[in-house]
């Protein structure tokens, strides 16, 4: 809590569907007074931004017991692989980024997201939705940096702004266009990962990397940076 930072903090009241405020906004768009206001408003966005709140589904709502609704019946056939469309490239012009996307899963040793070791590549969480998604969060994570390789693909992620375009391509050249709606920062101990790895709610793209203060002893960043984008 030593260093107030404006970006990532949900500046608006909860419930209003406005994006989180980014640092660039504070500096460039609103001038000094806004900067002070934003900087004083919060350190860590340990509550999700309203813009993200509006995208998250209510997974607790079951099938309604509506009179007259027939019981669904389906053949009890063995499941087959779904039509998942894996992202292959990710482009973010505001970061001058055009990175290869690898399908990744879980690090069996740690239970963590298996971010690609090569810092110029980013990883798509292959267990969650792909580009075919009509609901849920498509998650791509990448390194902010590495002790041995220097700056990573997502080094500039924290500086993204509302409305910055993001494009994701599949291996066949099909693309999906998104725009940033929120940039948030959480302590890793408090980030609500369930909502960013949700399989329900509005279809959205979630980009994650590390940020915040760096502990030189453990070589860990304290925080995660989370960018949420919706289809444009």
């Amino acid at each position, binding site marked *: 809590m*030593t*260093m107030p*930072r404006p970006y990532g903090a949900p500046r608006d009241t909860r419930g209003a569907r406005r994006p989180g405020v980014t640092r*660039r906004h504070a*500096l*460039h*768009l609103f*001038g*000094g007074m806004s900067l*002070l206001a934003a900087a004083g408003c919060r350190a860590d966005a340990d509550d999700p931004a309203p813009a993200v709140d509006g995208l998250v589904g209510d*997974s607790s709502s*079951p*099938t309604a*017991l509506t009179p*007259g*609704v027939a*019981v*669904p*019946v389906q*053949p*009890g*056939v*063995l*499941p087959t*692989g779904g039509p998942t469309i894996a992202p292959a490239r990710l482009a973010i012009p*505001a970061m001058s980024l055009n990175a290869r996307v690898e399908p990744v*899963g879980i690090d069996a040793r*740690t*239970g*963590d*997201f298996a*971010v690609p070791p090569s810092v110029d590549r980013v990883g798509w*969480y292959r*267990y969650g939705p792909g580009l075919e998604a009509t609901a849920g969060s498509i998650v791509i994570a*990448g*390194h*902010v*940096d*590495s002790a041995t*390789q*220097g700056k*990573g693909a*997502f080094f500039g992620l*924290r500086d993204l*702004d509302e409305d910055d375009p993001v494009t994701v391509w599949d291996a066949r050249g099909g693309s999906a266009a998104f725009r940033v709606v929120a940039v948030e920062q959480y302590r890793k101990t408090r980030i609500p*990962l*369930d909502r*960013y790895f949700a*399989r329900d709610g509005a279809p959205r793209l979630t980009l*994650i*990397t*590390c*940020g915040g*203060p*760096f502990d*030189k002893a453990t*070589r*860990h*960043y304290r925080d*995660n940076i989370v960018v949420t984008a919706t289809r444009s």
Partner: protein
Amino acid sequence: MRSLNIHRILALGAVAAAVTATAGLATATPAYAATSKVSVVHGIPATPVDVYVNGKVTLKDFKPGDVAGPLDLPEGSYDLDLTKPGEPIDKAILSVDGAKVPGGANISIVAHLDAAGTPKITPFVNDVSKVGAGKARLIVRHTAAAPAVDVRAGGTPVFKGLTNPDEAKADLPAGTVSADVVLAGTTTVAIPATDVDLKEGTATIVYATGSAEGKNLGVVAQVITGLHSAPGGVPSGDGGLADESGMSAWWLAAAAAALLLAVGGGVRMATRRTTR
């Protein structure tokens, strides 16, 4: 505890009734919930049925191999009858009366053959606890007129000595497994190998159905989604190049400068793009 709404809910009532009639499910009922998610599985070969709930037809011509539901069934008391399609309820081939239905469980009601080949109804409480990130749950239920079996994955027995009407389960790495069923302790194949796609964050329930003697052994599958967990974390940097420690002073200075500029004449500090 009867509800008019219930009469309109097809298989729900049937399911629930069967549940409490044949098994004590109270332990599966959290105190906070008043409804159960209920599915009905038809595992009796060559015997389509009509399902009556509290005396009213709610599922017509329910076919072998089909799965009905899931729907939310309020806890309550129900009568359930299965008839051959079009036949009156007094000619029911299976009946359960006045059964209490608890709330808060995820239940599959299975019409199937017992080990000797007689039709019966067995309720199963489904394990819908979360699976770990990257994992999927496989549940195998012996609901066939057949002796004890082993279930093999990739040729290796994973569930051994399973008998009707028991189940075996495990949380496995998500992905496709080639599974078959053999007579217990042998390599005599009862149900040939088939690929099963265990999708991450789901429970795939495979029912062995039919009759060995009737040479119509087979499987019926039911998938329950939404059991996924998020990864433990997203470690994505160990270089320190993006370190933001000790920036308080910088921010204060920047804020002060900005304030002065703003007061001094509303000077725009910079355009958005030129500062990249």
